[in-house]
C-alpha cells in the first residue's frame, strides 16, 4: 500500500480520533455550561463577572488579562461567552428532542398502521417540507415575538420545532416501511405478535440508532440555526448574553473591535463541530453502508 505517511496519519486522526474530539468538545462545553450557573465559575476561569462594567478597560483587544478582549462597557467577552453557553447548548437539545419525539411517534405509527393515518401524516409532512422552513420559522418567530420580548426565545423554539418535526416523521416512516417488508417482521406477524409488540421489539431498536445519528448531526445544525435567529434579535431577551446576538452587536464595531463578533462566532463553530464529529462517529457505528468511507 503506497500511501504517504501523512495521509495515513490524517486518516487515522479522522477515523477514530474525530469522534473522540467531537465527544470531548461536547463534554467540555456541557460541563462549562453546567458550571455557568455559579458566579464562582467566572472568577476561576475567566476572572471577571460577565456583567461587571469596567469602563477603565473598555474596548481592550484580546490579551492575557482578557482572553477574548472587552466590549465598550469593559465587560469581559470570555466571561460573557461562558455565560451565554447554557442557553445556546440547551436549545438544540430542546428543539431536536421535541422534533424527534413528535416525528418518531407520528412516523412510526403512520408507517406501521398505513391507510388513512399514513396518508394524512405524510401529506401534512410534505406540506411542511415544501415550505422554505427557515424563512417560515423566522417569520413566525418575528410575528409572535413582535409583541412580547420576554417570550421571543420560546416562540423561536416553537418555530424551529414546527419546521423540524416533518424530517423525523419522514425518516421514521421510511425506515418503518422498509422494515415492514423485512422477512423478520413478517415472521413476527406470522407468529401472532401484536402490532405494538412488533414495533417495540423489531422496529424501534432499528429506528432508534438511525434517528440517533441524524439527531446528533441535527443538533449542530440547530445550534447554528438558532444562532441565526439570535443574530436577528429573536433569541433570549437582553441583557442575558447570547452568542449569535453578540456577533450581531459586534458588527457595528467593525473593523476596529473585531473581537466582539469574532470570538462568540468561533465558540459557536467549535460547539457545532463537536456535534458534527460526534454525529459522524455515530453514523459510522450505525450505518454500515457508509462505514469506513467517510
Amino acid at each position, binding site marked *: 500500500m503506497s500511501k504517504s505517511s501523512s495521509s495515513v496519519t490524517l486518516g487515522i486522526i479522522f477515523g477514530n480520533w474525530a469522534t473522540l474530539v467531537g465527544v470531548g468538545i461536547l463534554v467540555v462545553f456541557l460541563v462549562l455550561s453546567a458550571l455557568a450557573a455559579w458566579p464562582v465559575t467566572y472568577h476561576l476561569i475567566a476572572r471577571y463577572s460577565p456583567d461587571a462594567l469596567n469602563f477603565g478597560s473598555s474596548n481592550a483587544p484580546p490579551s492575557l488579562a482578557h482572553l477574548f478582549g472587552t466590549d465598550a462597557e469593559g465587560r469581559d467577552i470570555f466571561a460573557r461567552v461562558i455565560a451565554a453557553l447554557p442557553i445556546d447548548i440547551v436549545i438544540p437539545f430542546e428543539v431536536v428532542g421535541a422534533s424527534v419525539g413528535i416525528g418518531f411517534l407520528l412516523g412510526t405509527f403512520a408507517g406501521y398502521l398505513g391507510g388513512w393515518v399514513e396518508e394524512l401524516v405524510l401529506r401534512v409532512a410534505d406540506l411542511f417540507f415544501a415550505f422554505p422552513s427557515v424563512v417560515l420559522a423566522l417569520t413566525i418567530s418575528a410575528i409572535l415575538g413582535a409583541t412580547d420580548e420576554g417570550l421571543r426565545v420560546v416562540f423561536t423554539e416553537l418555530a424551529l420545532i414546527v419546521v423540524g418535526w416533518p424530517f423525523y416523521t419522514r425518516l421514521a416512516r421510511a425506515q418503518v416501511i422498509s422494515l415492514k417488508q423485512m422477512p423478520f417482521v413478517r*415472521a*413476527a406477524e*406470522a*407468529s401472532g405478535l401484536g402490532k405494538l409488540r412488533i414495533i417495540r421489539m*423489531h422496529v424501534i431498536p432499528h429506528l432508534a440508532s438511525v434517528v440517533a445519528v441524524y439527531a446528533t448531526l441535527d443538533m449542530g445544525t440547530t445550534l447554528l440555526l438558532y444562532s441565526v435567529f439570535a443574530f436577528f434579535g429573536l433569541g433570549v431577551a437582553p441583557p442575558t448574553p447570547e452568542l449569535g446576538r453578540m456577533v450581531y452587536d459586534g458588527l457595528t464595531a467593525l473593523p476596529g473591535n473585531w473581537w466582539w463578533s469574532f470570538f462568540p462566532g468561533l465558540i459557536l463553530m467549535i460547539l457545532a463541530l463537536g456535534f458534527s464529529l460526534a454525529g459522524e462517529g455515530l453514523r459510522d457505528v450505525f450505518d454500515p453502508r457508509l462505514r469506513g468511507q467517510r
Partner: protein
Amino acid sequence: MSPATSTEDLVSAEALSVTYKVRTGFLGSTHRVIKPVDCVDLSVRKGEVMTVIGESGSGKSTLGFALLRLVKPSAGRVLFSGQDIGKAKGSDLRELRRQMQIVFQDPYSSLDPRLHVKDIVSEPLIGSGMKDPGEIDDRTSRAMTMVGLDPSAKSKYVHEFSGGQRQRIGIARAIVGDPQFVVLDEPTSNLDVSIQAQILNLLMDLQSKSGASYLFISHNMAVSQYVSDRVAVMYAGEVVERGTSEEVIGEPMHPYTQDLLSCVPTMDISRKVTDVKITGDPPSFADLPRGCRYSNRCKRAFDLCKEKEPALAAAGGREVACFLYHKEERAVAPPER
C-alpha cells in the same frame, strides 16, 4: 407416495386473488393494478407436502403469504380446518397463528440481527400468548435440538452463525409451536447444494415425525419432486396444472409444465436442455397475453387459446388448465383485465 396423507383438507384457498398497486408514469405519478394471484383454488391436505412450482413472477410467494394472512386477499377466502382465517380475531387469531408458520428464503433478512437466538425462536410461543418462562425456555431448547442446533447457543446473535445454521434457526422458529401447517418459501434456494441437502433431509424428517402439512414453494424441479406428495404448477398468477407429484412431474400434461421440465438439466448430460426451443420470457403482470396466459410461448397453441382462458379441470387423473384436454365449454368467463 407417502402413506400418511389423508384426503381431508387442512388449508384451502377458495377463488383467492391478491392485487397490488404499482406506481408508474413520470416520477410515479400514476398507479396501475396488478394481480399476482388471480382467482386461485388450492388445498393442502392433512399431513401432506404440497409444492407450488413456479418461475419468478408467477405469484407463488404471494400465494403463500396470502394463505398465512400475511397479505390481504382482494377476493376469495382461505379456510383453515373449515374456519375463515380472514374473519378470525383475538384469541382465535392467536391460535391460528400458532397453527400456521413460515420459513423464509433468505436466512439473513428473516432473522432480526438485534435479537438473541432464543428470542427469535420463541417468538411464536410468545405470540400465541404463552407466559410461563420455564415452558418457553424448554420448548425453545427442544426446537433447537430438533433442528440440529446446540441449545447452549441460544444466547448468541445470529451473525455468529453460517447460512445453513441460520436457516436451521428459521426452521426452529417455525416448528417451536408445533404448527399443523408450515409454508416454506424457497427455504434452500439461497444455500449451497451440500447445505441444501442437509436442510431438505431435516425438513423431511421433521414433517414425517410431526405429521404436519407443508406448503413448499419452489422454482427447483428436482427439489420439488424430492419433497412433494402433490404439486401445483403456477404460471402468471394462475394454477395451470395440479396433481400428485408422480403425475405432474412424471408425466406432465400442460405444455408449460412440459417445457419447464424439459429445460431442467439432469445427470443425463446427453439430454441437452440447449436443444429445447422455448421462446420469450415469463410474462409480466402488467402485460399479459390475451386468452391463455401461456399462449404466446406455447408451441401447441391454436386459435381458441388466444381468445379464451382455459379453466382448471380434470384430465388424465389430475387437473389441467389447457384446451388441448378439454374444449371450449371449460373456458372461464372472459377475463375482466
